[in-house]
């Protein structure tokens, strides 16, 4: 196994009386897709916010490609790309202009042609490239989000409910895109409720509940078990 790109050790975070994370430890390696499953309030978003450097954990350690975001958030973010459930883009700007702006603020300098190539790579229809994002479907916005990650050549990609609200065809297309990114060596952490997508796409599945890792299933195990029953068993135990 290679050195983990995303490494989380004994992460703890409390909001007042509520203990959101209780010693969570995870690792995502180069070229690996890790699906992070858990019910609402399990700690998925808190974990992502700690990874992005938006939250300071109370204890524990995170490294992104060897950089601790608590100590150097700017460098850590350079290695990361983040695609939320709703990819937030500027509605009056075109897909191309959005990609160019998000890339340039991250100090990535590319020509318009290079940005167009990236949008073609993520299969954004060519007729949409120069249209305002306000006219895009959710799937098309996700594609622009992935193009932003591609432009950045990020070592790690964090996805928060990426397939929620996508139609099956868009979801399938999305799945192919992240598989392709993983093949290029990107470590992908995908927080999701979509058990089907997790089972289809992930190399490993981590189930968390009440801020703790309760089970990890390897790719080989995923072929043999019914993920839904394993998931429900852990969640009921947790409850």
């Amino acid at each position: 196994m290679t050195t983990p790109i995303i490494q989380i050790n004994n992460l703890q975070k409390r909001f007042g009386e509520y203990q959101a994370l209780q010693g969570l430890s995870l690792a995502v390696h180069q070229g690996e897709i890790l699906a992070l499953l858990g019910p609402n309030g399990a700690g998925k978003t808190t974990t992502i916010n700690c990874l992005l450097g938006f939250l300071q954990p109370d204890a524990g350690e995170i490294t992104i490609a060897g950089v601790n975001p608590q100590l150097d958030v700017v460098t850590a973010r350079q290695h990361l790309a983040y695609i939320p459930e709703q990819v937030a883009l500027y509605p009056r700007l075109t897909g191309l202009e959005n990609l160019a702006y998000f890339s340039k603020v991250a100090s990535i300098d590319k020509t318009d042609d290079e940005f167009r190539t990236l949008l073609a790579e993520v299969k954004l229809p060519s007729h949409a490239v120069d249209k305002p994002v306000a006219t895009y479907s959710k799937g098309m916005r996700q594609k622009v989000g992935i193009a932003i990650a591609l432009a950045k050549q990020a070592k790690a990609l964090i996805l928060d409910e990426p397939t929620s609200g996508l139609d099956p065809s868009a979801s399938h297309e999305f799945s192919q895109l992240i598989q392709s990114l993983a093949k290029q060596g990107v470590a992908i952490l995908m927080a999701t409720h979509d058990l089907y997508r997790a089972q289809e796409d992930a190399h490993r599945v981590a189930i968390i509940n009440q801020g703790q890792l309760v089970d990890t299933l390897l790719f080989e195990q995923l072929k043999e078990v019914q993920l839904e029953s394993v998931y429900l068993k852990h969640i009921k135990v947790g409850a």
Partner: protein
Amino acid sequence: MLQSTFKKEWLDTKRQGQTLWLSGIAVLLLLLACVTGFKSHQSYQQAVNEVSQSEQLRWLNQGEKGPHSAAHYGIYVVKPTTPLAALDDGLQAYQGNVLRLEAHIRNDSLFRSAQDNVPLSRFGSLSPAFVLQVLLPLLIILIGYPLLAREREQGTLKQLLAAGASPAKLFFAKCAVLFTLSCLFLLPVALFLLYSQTASEAPYTLRNALFLLSYLIYLLLWALITTTLSSLFPTARRALITLLTIWAFATLLLPKLAMNIATTLHPQGSGQAFQAKLESEVYTDARLDAIEKFKQQTLAQYGVSQVADLPFDYAGAQLQFGEQYADKIFDRLFKARLEQLEAQSQSYQLAGLLTPFIAVQTLSMATAATDFSHQQSFENAAEQHRRLMQEVLNFNQRDHGHKAQGHYTAGKELWQQIPEFSYQYPRFTHYLPHYAISLISLAFWLIVLVLLSLFAIKKLRLEEQR
């Protein structure tokens, strides 16, 4: 980052349309205000030249008459103006522009155009200074309030930060966009100053530079506060409401309140009451006693028993004594009034620590020479001229009056001995100490808002924790 943020904001703004409309209206208003200000300044300047010339001719061609009759005939002098007065007419409309110089009395300025206006016209006056001080901050708010707050609302802020955008660079790029846009509105003003600088016979370089610099700092302050609050508030709507409240307080309510407090702390009677007080303090029994004493001293000095035996015309000597006697009273009363007005001005300026509007308003009027201090300089110079005039006329009466058979009259030769009143304002550095509080206030606000910006940037770093 700066360039890409400029490009993005420009594209966004262009496609939104609303901001372009607002900016267009503001530029139009400012151009209109500049043109009307320039026109009114031109006509005022023309009037100053015409009145000065015609007054001098009227004085020189008044014909043969007694020097004291000429002293009562008097002349009118007009307050000079600077090109900047076209942009900020300040207190000009309230202070009066013309002074009548005559025997025995120090007059107040005349022709206060504000007195001729109907009360409502004050709200309708659209001077460039009003646009710059009141309307431009409003425009900066209307354009800038969503800069970061809307990014937060639509989720792009989190994504920008996650993409690796530096919060400080993002904040300052947004602020720079807003400030640059507001500087564009200053362009008509800068062009006007450039024109006046090249066209004017006496360029007011320091005044023009300080005028522009004050407004640049003022607009930067509004750009900073708008970006800061847009960054601190969770929604654009809340940022807008707060900014509009601050704008109303800073540009409308606090200046009015500060002025009321200043006039309450240092009360000042009306001009008419003051003029009445001058006359009542001068024309007293004490004055008659002093004149009688002067007469006795003069008779004793020349060893004669009646004024007819003096080797000069006693009437001229007594007139000059009367002038000097009154001048001492004028000096005392005007000094007291001046101190009171200066105290008012300093109290008002002190309120600049509560709103930068007061600081920039003070500095704007000061550089345009349309404030109280410049009015005072002009009135003092005019008074010195009046005294010189009286001295020349009275001494002429004293020295030549007794030689005449019958009523003594003088002519153009005497009138020419009095130099034409030609007043130029001292260099601006002369006035600077008066405006120390306003200069400090601007610096204070700059420091406060830079610190607030740094606080906002710190909050941006922990964006998700709000």
